[in-house]
C-alpha cells in the first residue's frame, strides 16, 4: 500500500493546523468554534448570519458538531455523537474557488494527480434554517471528504452575495489519510489517539441522549429558550436571540434522540425553531451589519 509507506500522514491536529495556515493565507479570519451546542458548522453565526447581506467575508474554523441520534456509545468505528467539521466560508465565492479548494488538499500533502478526485453533484438543504444550496460532495478515491456548497438561500431569504461553504469532514479525511478503519484509532497528536480523548465522552453522551436525558426538563428548557428568543427579538438583541434559537435546536435534537417527541409534535417543534431562525435572519439584516471584518462591531 503506497499510502501507508508515506510515513508522514498528518495527524489530526497537524491537519487542522495545515488548513488554518492555508485558509489564513487566503484571507480568512480564523474564528474559533461557537460555544453553544450546534449540529453543524453552518449554524455558527459566522456562517448563518454573516452569509446574509452583501458584505464580503472570509472565515475558517473548526466546529465540534453534536448529533445526538448518531451517538453509538463509542462502539461504532464510524458513527459519532460529536464530530469535527472544518468550515470555510468565502463570500462572495471567488471564480477560482474549486482550484483553491484543491490547493488546500495539496497543502495536506496529497498529490492530486495520483488520486481520483471527483466533484459529484450533491445539493444541500436545511429546512429548519430555511436554507439551501447547490454543489458537490468531493470524493477522494471514493471517500467523501468535503461538502462543497454554493448557498442560495439562508433563513428563507435569497442571498445578495453567493457564499461558498466548504465543510471538510475531519474524521473521514483523517481516517483516509492515516488509513485507520476506526475513528478511535486516529492519531490526534504524537502518542495520543482520537479514542483516548473522545471515547468516554461518546459513551457518556450517548447514554445521556438515549437513556438519561429527562424529557420533561428538556421540554421545559425548550419552551424557556423559545420564549427568551422571542423576547430578545422584540428588543431587538439579535445575537442573544440567535443563541437561544441554537439552544432550542439542540434541545430538539436531544428530545428526538430520546424518542420523546411524537410525530405531530416533531413537525410542530421543527416549525417553531424554523420560524425563530428566520426571524433572526430578517432581524439581523434589518439592523444592518455594522460589524464588518477588521472593524470592531457589536458582537
Amino acid at each position: 500500500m503506497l499510502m501507508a509507506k508515506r510515513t508522514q500522514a498528518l495527524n489530526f491536529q497537524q491537519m487542522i493546523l495545515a488548513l488554518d495556515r492555508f485558509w489564513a493565507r487566503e484571507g480568512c479570519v480564523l474564528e474559533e468554534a461557537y460555544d453553544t451546542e450546534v449540529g453543524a458548522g453552518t449554524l455558527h453565526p459566522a456562517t448563518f448570519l454573516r452569509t446574509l447581506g452583501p458584505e464580503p467575508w472570509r472565515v475558517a474554523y473548526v466546529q465540534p458538531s453534536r448529533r445526538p441520534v448518531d451517538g453509538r456509545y463509542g462502539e461504532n468505528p464510524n458513527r459519532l455523537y460529536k464530530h469535527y467539521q472544518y468550515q470555510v466560508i468565502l463570500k462572495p465565492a471567488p471564480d477560482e474557488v474549486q482550484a483553491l479548494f484543491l490547493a488546500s488538499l495539496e497543502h495536506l500533502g496529497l498529490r492530486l494527480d495520483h488520486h481520483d478526485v471527483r466533484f459529484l453533484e450533491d445539493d444541500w438543504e436545511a429546512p429548519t434554517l430555511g436554507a439551501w444550496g447547490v454543489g458537490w460532495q468531493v470524493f477522494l478515491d471514493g471517500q467523501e471528504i468535503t461538502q462543497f456548497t454554493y448557498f442560495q438561500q439562508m433563513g428563507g431569504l435569497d442571498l445578495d452575495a453567493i457564499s461558498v461553504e466548504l465543510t471538510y469532514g475531519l474524521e473521514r479525511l483523517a481516517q483516509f489519510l492515516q488509513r485507520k478503519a476506526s475513528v478511535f484509532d486516529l492519531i490526534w497528536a504524537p502518542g495520543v489517539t482520537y479514542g483516548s480523548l473522545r471515547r468516554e465522552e461518546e459513551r457518556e453522551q450517548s447514554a445521556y441522549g438515549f437513556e438519561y436525558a429527562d424529557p420533561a426538563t428538556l421540554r421545559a428548557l425548550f419552551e424557556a429558550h423559545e420564549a427568551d428568543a422571542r423576547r430578545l427579538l422584540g428588543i431587538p438583541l439579535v445575537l442573544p436571540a440567535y443563541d437561544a434559537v441554537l439552544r432550542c435546536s439542540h434541545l430538539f435534537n436531544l428530545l428526538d434522540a430520546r424518542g420523546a417527541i411524537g410525530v405531530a409534535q416533531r413537525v410542530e417543534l421543527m416549525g417553531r425553531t424554523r420560524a425563530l431562525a428566520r426571524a433572526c435572519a430578517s432581524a439581523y439584516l434589518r439592523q444592518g451589519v455594522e460589524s464588518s471584518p477588521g472593524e470592531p462591531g457589536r458582537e
Partner: protein
Amino acid sequence: MSRRPGARRPSAPRLLLEIGTEELPPAAVRPALEQLLRDATAVLGDARLDAERLATTGTLRRLVLTAQGLSSRQRDLVTQVRGPAARIAYDADGCPTAAAHGFARSQGVAVESLRACEIEGGRYVVAEVRETGRPAAEVLRELLPRLAAGLTFPKMMRWNAGGFRFGRPIRWIVALLDGRVIPLEIAGVRAGRRTVGHRFLAPGRAAVARAADYEGIMRRARVLLSAEERRARIAGGTTTLAGTVAGRPVLDEALLEELVWSTEHPTPVLGRLEADLVAALPPIVVRVTLQHHQKCFGIVDGSGALVPAFVTVRDGGTSHLDVVRTGHEWVVRARLKDALFFLEEDRRSGFDQWNEALTRVAHVEGLGTVADHVSRVCHLARWLADALGISDSDGRALDRAARLCKADLTTSLVREFPELQGAIGAIYARERGEAETVAVAIEEHYAPRGLGADLPRSLPGALLSLADRAVLMAGAVHAGLEPSGSQDPHGIRRAASGIATVLREHGLAISLRELFGQAAMTFDAPDGDRARVAAACVRIAQQRLVGMLTEEGLAYDTINATLAVGSDDVPDLVARARALHELRAQPVMPLLVTGYLRVHRILVQAGRTSIGEGARDVAQGGLREELLVEPAEMELHGAWLRAHPRLTSAAQSRQYALALAEIATLAGPIDGFFDKVLVNAPDAALRENRLALLERVSGSFRKIADFGVLVI
C-alpha cells in the same frame, strides 16, 4: 447529437461554442446538450443562418455547440410592405403622388420600384424591401448568449454573475468562427479562444487557433468529448477487468450512464476485497454498497454469485493506479464493515422492538405514525383474505407479513440503505425463523417498485401490496393530498397503477369500489367523508387502468364502454375491454352498434329507465310470447332465446369473446325488427310486449359493455 439541414458549402465557415462550467449534475448534461441543439437549430433558422451540420457534444464540464458549413452572412430578407391605395399613390396620369413618394422614402426604396397589387379586394402599392443579411459573426454575437441563457436545468443556481442562472457556474467560454473570436459575453464571462483541459491530466489552458482544431485539442487535453467513446471505455474496460477475476460485471445501466456523464477521461480500475467480509453480508447489501454508495460495478461469477472484487471508474489516466486502487479498496472495505456493524447491531434486536419504534416514525403528514398505517394495512389485508377466500396457510402468512412489513424501517441497515426496505425485512424474517412465505411477502409488498417493474409473485405478497397501497391512497385522499396536475408527491398515482397491475396480473376479482370502501373504513371519519374518499380512489384507479389499457392499444371508447356497466373488478374489466376491442375489428360491428342505439333510444323514449341496470336479469316477466305476432319480432325473440343463455354462461366464466359472438348474432334480427315492426303500435299490449322484448335484448348487450358509448 446532430442535425443536417441545408446544402453543402465546402468553404463555408465553422462555428465553435464551448461553455465551460464547473461540474454539472451528470443527469443534466445530456438533456442540456439536447436542448442546446434544438434551440440552436430553431434560433439559427429564425436568424436566416444556414448550417450544413449542427451538433452538440460535451461532458459535465463543457457544453459544446458546433456548426459546419455555416453561411457567412444571413440570407437577405425580402418583404413586401403594403402602402397607400393605388388610387391615392398615383394621379390620373399614373404618376406617383406625394403619398407614393412619402411611402417609398419611409421604406428606403426608389419610388419607381413601387408596384401596384391586388390585396384583399383593393389595389395598393407595394414596396419590396430588402434587408441585407448581416455577417454571421455579428448575428451570432447576439444569438449565442441568448441561447446559453435559455438553457434550463432541473435546479438552477446563482453565483455572483448578476442574476444569471445556470446548472453550475460558467467559468470559461470559447466562441470561434473559424479562426476569429466572436466577442460575446455570457454570465459575465468574455469569450476567447482558450479552453481548459482535463482537470488533472492536462491542467491549464490551451488555445484553439481555429474552430476546426477543437476536437484534436480536446484529445490532446485528455478530454473524451464523445459520450459513446466514454461509454465504450467504461463498459469494455470493466468487462475485461472482471474477466481477470473470472467474472463478469453487473453493468447497471443507470450507474453506467451516470459514470459516462460524470467523467471526462474514464479509466476502470479493479479492486479486490476479502472473501470472508463479502460472505458475511447479504449479497444485496454488498451490491448496493458498491453500486449506489461507491459508484462501483459489482462482479459475479458464472452462477451469479458475487466475486469479492469490484471495478471502480477513475476520472483520470493510468498513472499511479495502485494508489487509486488501494484507496478505493480501503473505502469500500470500510463501508462494508460499516454495514456489517449495522447488521450485527440489528441482530441484537428484533421485530417487536422495531415495530415499537414505528410508533415514533411519521407516516404521510396528517395520517399519524407508520405503526398506525400498519394496523390499517393488517385490517384491510384480513378483509382481502376473507373476500377472496384464500387458503389458511396463505391467510396466516399474509397476517403475519402484514404485521411485520414495515418493521425494517427502523433497523440500522435500512436507515443506512433506505433503498433496501423490504429486502432487509425479508432477510431478518428468515434469520428469525419466520416462514419463507412471510419473508417473501414482506419483500414483495413493495412491488411493483415502478412502472414495468417486477410484480409480487406470491399471493400473500400480492395482497399485502394491494392493502399497503389502498390504505396509502385512501389516507392521502382523506388528508387532502390527492395528486393534482403533475404534482403527486406521495406517489398516489403510482400506487393506483400498482393496484391495477397486481389485480390484473393476479386475476383477483375484487371490486375497486369495495376495496377502497374498506380502505376508507380504516380511517376515523364520518360516513360521508369515507364515501367521498372511496369514490375518489376508485376514480384514480380507473384512470390508471384506462391509461394501461390505452397503452395496450385499446381505444378510449372501448374502455369507457366497459367501465360503464357491470362489475368493476379489474380482471373482469380488462377481459371485457379486450374482447370488445377484438370484436370492433369485425364487419358486423357498425350494424351491431346501430342496432343497440335504436333499441336504446326507443326504450329511453318509452321511459324504460331500468335499462340503466344493465346486468339485471330481465329474462323474467313482462314478455308474453303469444303477443309476438310479426315474423320479424318472433325472429328477434328466437335469436335472443338462443343467444342469451349461452352468452350468460360465457360471461359467467369470463369468456367474453364467446359472449360477444352471441351478441353479434342479434345484429341481423334487430335490423330486421326495426325494418318491419312498429314498436309504438296502437295496441297498448302489443307495444308493451315489444318494449319488453327490446329490454331483454338491451340487457344482453349490457352484460358486456355500453355499446351506446362506442364511436363508429
